[in-house]
């Protein structure tokens, strides 16, 4: 192996002189550079996480600091897993997750495919499409409540205009049947560009020569699409799904502002439910166990998924 010139110079220099010349040694510098970040993350992420795990085995309540804290073993965990309401929350989260991912993948891929046709001005229009993605979800959720207003809202007016229905006859966020779709629509509006950008990068990474070779072999356009385009974009698409999956499993700000979990608890996703237990009912121990379960679920599902992703990449 070739050594870099620096290493050779370093080896030839006597140790004492080298130290004076180079100031701190590389190793000391490496630790000096990495340590502050690791310490901060340990303090603000790992320490609280360990604390959460410890609290999850107790009946501690933040609003009763003087009450005796008892160790309750796995009771919190058992209570959560046997609670019917929590399973309903999980169902709401699954419904939201599955539909947002399906819609965003379909629309996002289609848009990327069309943009990749390189029509004139595609850069400008791509930038416009991307705008909603970077905005504050809480503020977005808040102004969509205005667009969803039964009579005066733009969304209801547009639907009324297109279908002939009376715009004041339905309420996207007040109706039990429509509210789950209200949050899916806003999330899709906001995050489809994310999937689109990743798909676009995937499409642009396919060398044109592959299509030329397929053309020589007289493969139909349809066949080229399914045997070249889709398999080569798939790793990108799966990455996009991973990001969206993790983000939407944690979903809090947008939905809290949009529906607040209502009507009833029909759009109460797990994070919103958790916030209620922790910061409204102040069942700290119980909420901590809940948080641990959620974290383990995200981490577990993400790890399995990443394994699958790596398999697809290797093919």
């Amino acid at each position, binding site marked *: 192996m070739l050594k870099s010139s620096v290493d050779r110079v370093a080896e030839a220099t006597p140790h004492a002189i080298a130290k004076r010349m180079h*100031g701190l040694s590389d190793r000391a510098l490496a630790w000096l550079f990495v340590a502050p970040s690791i310490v901060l993350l340990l303090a603000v992420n790992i320490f609280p996480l360990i604390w*959460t795990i410890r609290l999850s085995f107790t009946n501690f309540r933040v609003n009763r600091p003087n009450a005796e804290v008892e160790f309750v073993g796995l009771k919190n965990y058992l209570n959560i897993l046997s609670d019917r309401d929590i399973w309903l929350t999980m169902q709401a989260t699954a419904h939201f997750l599955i539909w947002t991912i399906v819609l965003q993948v379909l629309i996002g891929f289609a848009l990327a495919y069309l943009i990749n046709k390189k029509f004139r001005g595609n850069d400008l229009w791509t930038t416009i499409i991307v705008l909603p993605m970077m905005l504050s979800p809480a503020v977005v959720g808040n102004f969509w409540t205005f667009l969803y207003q039964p009579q005066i809202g733009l969304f209801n007016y547009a639907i009324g205009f297109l279908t002939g229905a009376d715009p004041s006859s339905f309420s996207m966020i007040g109706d039990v049947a429509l509210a789950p779709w209200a949050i899916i629509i806003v999330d899709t509006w906001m995050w489809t560009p994310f999937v689109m950008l990743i798909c676009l990068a995937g499409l642009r990474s396919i060398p044109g020569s592959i299509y030329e070779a397929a053309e020589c072999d007289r493969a139909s356009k349809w066949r080229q699409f399914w045997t070249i385009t889709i398999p080569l974009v798939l790793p990108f698409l799966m*990455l996009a799904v991973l990001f969206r999956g993790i983000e939407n499993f944690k979903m809090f700000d947008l939905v809290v502002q949009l529906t607040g979990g209502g009507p009833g608890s029909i759009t109460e996703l797990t994070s919103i439910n958790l916030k209620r237990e922790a910061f409204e009912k102040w069942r700290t121990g119980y909420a901590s166990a809940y948080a641990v379960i959620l974290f383990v679920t995200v981490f577990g599902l993400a790890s399995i998924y990443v394994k699958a992703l790596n398999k697809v990449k290797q093919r």
Partner: protein
Amino acid sequence: MSSYSVTEPSLRQKWVAGILVVGYALITILPLVWIIGTSFKSPSDAIAYPPKTFFTPTVEGYVNVFTTRTRLSPEQLQALGEPTTWYDKLVRKDGLVISGPSRFAERFTNSVIIGFGSTVLCIVLGTAAAYAFSRFKVPLKDDLLFFILSTRMMPPIAVAIPIFLMFRSLGLSDTHAGMILLYTAVNLSLSVWLLKGFIDEIPVEYEEAALIDGYTRFQAFYKVVLPQAATGIASTAIFCLIFAWNEYAFAVLLTSGNAQTAPPFIPTIIGVSGQDWPAVAAGATLFLVPVMVFTILLRKHLLRGITFGAVRK
């Protein structure tokens, strides 16, 4: 058919694709245009049916978002005499007088302080760590990098309880310092991963040349690598700024009076008589437009930023 190519889409395909994409773009931008439009409507125009596309613009919404107002009877208004300023005049025609500033300016300032504070910290810590990960043999490098990334997977609410307790005992709850520290930790994973990618792309040879010229490692980092990484650092900074600017969950749980940022505040804006939509829209517009401008500036690095450097164009 001189320049026929199988990979170049035909003119017809381009037209169809263009029309569909432009159609989608116009629909997707409509809610944003509508909110900006609403911020210039009068309260009665904002709740008109059918929704008004054309209206006489007014800055009443902007006046309302920065002030609190009280309703007075016509006799009381008479006794007050003529309004002295243009904004007084504007609210006077609704039978109101300005009774003081609202907390919007304060919340907005908090967002600016916490956003920029955490961004600076994030970039300083992130650049150092990224440089070390990129250039040195750090023990357990891959594990540490994965650990840094995994902190991003935690739902904020899951760690909010102990952070809440921790901040309370350290006297950090509802302070700028506490929020800056917290947002730095939240964005550090992004900053380390992105910056490592940018520094990886700078050839090592530049530093080696500098080292041979007698620079110390630190000087080489400071005088050679940093200027080369300037674009990467700038775009990473904008990402950190946008994410800190947009954050809501920690802000709503850990701040109340003193250090509250704009996102938890904007939805609580209410007028004298019920929901004042132009004022809410004005608050949202002031808050969102800077992000839109930054997004347009960032468009080349957007993909890289949102995927933590996993996908580079």
